[in-house]
């Protein structure tokens, strides 16, 4: 039986439930997103062209510059923002951005979370419990 609850080392934000976009690549709001149109815009990103609003992003690591800390708040205020971001490894910028923007975030698992969670699965994120639960797997 495959695992359907995963526990993170780091967690913050509200409980959320939604469909995930999974990529074995990094993530930066500055480098990867067209925030005006709400889609991934870096051509080499596996999620290129996909809309991210109200999704749970499951990605490998936090990349790039400090701008994401402002950008998450800005996206949240325009209601064009991921519900949550889940990382194998996070950096301070994305964690600070999640804290400022009030979105859910989990990071640090015993497995590679990007291979454990099929893209399109429905997930429940409970930061107080530091858990990610697969409600419905897309595999």
């Amino acid at each position, binding site marked *: 039986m495959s695992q359907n609850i995963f526990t993170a080392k780091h967690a*913050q934000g509200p409980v959320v439930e939604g469909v995930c976009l999974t990529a074995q690549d990094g993530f930066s709001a500055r480098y990867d997103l067209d925030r005006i149109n709400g889609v991934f815009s870096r051509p080499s990103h596996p999620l290129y062209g996909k809309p991210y609003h109200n999704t749970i992003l499951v990605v490998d*690591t936090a990349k790039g510059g400090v701008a994401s800390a*402002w950008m998450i708040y800005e996206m949240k205020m325009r209601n064009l923002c991921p519900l949550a971001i889940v990382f194998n490894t996070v950096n301070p910028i994305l964690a600070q951005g999640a804290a400022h923007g009030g979105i859910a975030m989990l990071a640090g698992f015993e497995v590679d979370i990007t291979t454990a969670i099929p893209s399109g699965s429905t997930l429940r994120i409970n930061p107080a419990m530091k858990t990610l639960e697969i409600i419905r797997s897309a595999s």
Partner: protein
Amino acid sequence: MNLNQEEKAMLAGEFGPVRKTAIEHQIKVGDFFGAEDFVPVSQAHIMADTESLGEAGVLWLESLAKNAGKDRTVRIPTITDPRGTDFNKAKQLGQTEVMLALEKRAIAAFIKMGVSMTDTCINYQTIMAPVYGEHVAFGDTGVVIYSNSICGARSNFEGGPSALAAGLTGRTPRYGFHIEQHRQPTHRFLVRWTPESLNEWGALGGLIGRKSGNYWSVPVIEGIEGHPGSDSLKHFGAAMASFGSCALFHILGITPEAIHSHDLHYTHLAPIEINKADVMALQSSYRVSDEIDVVVFSAPQLSLFEMQSVAALCDGKKFKKPLLAVTSPQVKPDADRMGYTAMIEAAGGTVFAGMCFYQSYAREIAQANGWKRLATNSAKMVNILGGYGYTPILASMEDCVRAAETGRLA
């Protein structure tokens, strides 16, 4: 987190609502990373261009700035990263009045909070470099990696809200690179070739960053011959931070925590060899076009010596394509006084100050000017601009200037 009496008082609102907001944010971040307590910091550096802030971010800043003067003012020297424009040349970039108005509002809010508008990402070359062991709260990944690695200071990446919070409280959560054990190497690179040009240093930094993988990785580098100067290490670190999110590296015999190799624990790490072909492969991966629309020198802002080099290459030329050279407000007056600005602009180039290209509504100015194929010697910038719709090309400073003259890279 364990709080001292002053921190408890801030949290209780005894130092006003702005500092309460600031320390609440810092505690959220500290709890997320398991910080035990706060560490006092001596300087803060805030990245806050308005393309990132947006209307919402500016409104948030203004909500802080409208508080009483004693409540809203930063406690420690707090400076700014490049802004989103050079007001003197904004129209040339195709920036709109809406963008400029937002910039002005953000600046007004920061000034009310006592922030010094230095508008630079090379503060370690121009304002006040931190010293060995000094705890700071710096934004801009290039500033942090240089300060940690070359100066031996202690900083995490501090995004704008966190850097401002540190300025207001005078402290930051103690996690990451404020803790000695996290400064030890995690990856060991054996470099078989020492770069010469800035683009080569950037490409090497980008490659090491890409191979290192994430923020918590600390590369130690062996095999560098001679002693790279500040500008080379600036491009090296900025690219490593950009490609790998790295915040600290060591170069044996050169950087302060690696002067004596026995101070570092790295011999158990398997060396990863890097040769010239590996570095050139990264550079070549961006060479998808010979035709170019624009040449940009930026990211990081140019030092006085980089401005001198660009000016010498521009002297006597006539450009077919726009060439933009972006420096800091501190370097610009010297570049003017020494004739570098005039030499660049006589050839048809333009010198900008106080902004950085990719932080200046890069997508919108591309559309306004019809720019897509962008040549630069900044490895950091080529890593960023793909997401903004550009086709960035990495080349030497000499080749970039020649491309501005002929319209194509040789």
